[in-house]
């Protein structure tokens, strides 16, 4: 018997189609890769005004009970005990080898209630992994992915667009913090987080309210006007996060890369006590990593793409994890793993672009950093 995986749809599927979204299969989800404005315009509008993203495909796992913090701390790399109520944290689920099951956000509602937000394509794997580590701890785990919609409003105008719709004083929510309140009268969690390198918010609400909140945000953001909000597809989400130097699971990080190799030592709190893979990560930290993730800028004509090989001094030494034109920076950029000895700014490298060697240079990441006001 062959099981045919059913394509999954977010509550906004019909809305995307009505907006002219070009739908693609993304890790088993039927998602818009772009709308008629096109990836470049969606990207630029997010940098200059605001973009609206349906990220309802992301998974949510509820963790409740007296041991919630201790349990999550034992399976993730960042230090959950440092969170206060209303704070969120970027972290990773690690393997015993110190490689990455998934990257995630950990939200703390209270000392006995956390919410884990994980990647769409890995939700089932994560859920099984997390359950398999549950022994005697006093926690209740629930996969609540289908209960939530998640909309991201990102860009310099995000706050002014969302503010009239909510009773929460948005300017008081600090980066990587969240608050519970209402959006258009609907119960919601409003989190000052995102995946674009811009200021912005992610709104979690009941799945059946997705369409209403989406439409309100488009209206409030004057969708249709030249500097209004634009709905953005997965392609713009990818180029925005790449310019901002953020890792994408399955590209920069996966079960073959360790957090230290991926420059994610900052979410790897080896002093907090044991967690899955912490011994291996401590050993790797002591011995030093053999390869490291770097950002590069293509200096000659050509566009580096995922999986292209990287050459240094004529030797094939690594692969591009993400490569793309960067619409705001107007450069061709990418990230790649290279041996640690070469992982320095200014190092000249070559990318094998379908048989043609194209010159590139290792540069500092993030490629793009917004000006803070």
């Amino acid at each position: 018997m062959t099981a045919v995986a059913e394509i999954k749809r977010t509550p906004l599927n019909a809305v995307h189609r009505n907006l002219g979204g070009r739908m693609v299969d993304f890790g088993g989800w039927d998602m818009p890769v772009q709308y008629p404005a096109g990836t470049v315009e969606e990207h630029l509008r997010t940098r200059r005004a605001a973009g609206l993203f349906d990220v309802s495909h992301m998974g949510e796992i509820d963790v409740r009970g007296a041991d919630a913090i201790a349990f999550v701390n034992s399976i993730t790399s960042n230090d959950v005990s440092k969170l206060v109520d209303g704070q969120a944290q970027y972290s990773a689920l690690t393997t015993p080898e110190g490689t990455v099951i998934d990257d995630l956000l950990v939200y703390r509602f209270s000392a006995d209630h956390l919410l884990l937000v994980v990647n769409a394509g890995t939700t089932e794997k994560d859920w099984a992994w997390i359950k398999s580590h549950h022994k005697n701890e006093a926690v209740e785990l629930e996969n609540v992915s289908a209960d939530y919609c998640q909309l991201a409003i990102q860009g310099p105008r995000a706050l002014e667009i969302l503010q009239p719709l909510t009773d929460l004083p948005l300017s008081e929510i600090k980066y990587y913090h969240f608050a519970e309140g209402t959006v258009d009268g609907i119960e919601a969690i409003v989190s000052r987080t995102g995946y674009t390198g811009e200021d912005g918010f992610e709104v979690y609400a009941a799945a059946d309210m997705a369409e209403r909140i989406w439409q309100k945000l488009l209206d409030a953001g004057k969708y249709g006007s030249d500097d209004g909000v634009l709905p953005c597809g997965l392609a713009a989400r990818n180029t925005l996060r790449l310019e901002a130097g953020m890792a994408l699971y399955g590209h920069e990080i996966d079960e073959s890369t360790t957090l230290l190799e991926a420059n994610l030592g900052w979410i790897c709190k080896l002093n907090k006590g044991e967690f899955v893979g912490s011994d291996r990560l401590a050993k790797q930290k002591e011995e030093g990593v053999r390869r490291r993730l770097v950002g590069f800028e293509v200096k000659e004509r050509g566009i580096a793409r995922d999986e292209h090989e990287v050459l240094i001094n004529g030797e094939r030494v690594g692969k591009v994890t993400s490569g793309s034109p960067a619409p705001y920076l107007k450069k061709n950029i990418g990230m790649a793993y290279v041996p640690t000895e070469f992982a320095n700014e200014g190092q000249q490298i070559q990318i094998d672009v379908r048989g043609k060697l194209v010159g590139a240079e290792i540069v500092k990441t993030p490629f793009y950093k917004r000006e803070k006001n």
Partner: protein
Amino acid sequence: MANIPEDLHYSKDHEWVRVDGNVAVVGITDYAQDSLGDVVYVELPKPGEKFAANESFGSVESVKAVSEVFSPVSGEIAEANDSLTDAPEKVNTDPYGDGWMIRVKMSAPGEVDSLLTAAEYEDFTKGDTE
């Protein structure tokens, strides 16, 4: 609805051909540029290079994807549209005009007869979307 001019010949790889004596002007169709999205990079051959029919002569890249472009006819490159290096967006805005890619001196002009007519190409693209 994609624009498909009556007077051109079309390939199943979504290139168009305009016959000008023994020279074929080649580009990609409106349907192709729309599927591709914003074109940000075009790689074209140099004059004098020779290609057989259905051989790849270059590539067109959008933010998201790379597409090879195939010469619908055999022959030698007489001229490439080098203005696309600095203005690749012309492939999107004027695919049958300023967005042309190469002029080929045909070595077998009869090949044009085996290409699709506008009506045939329209049917073909409809099948493509189903």
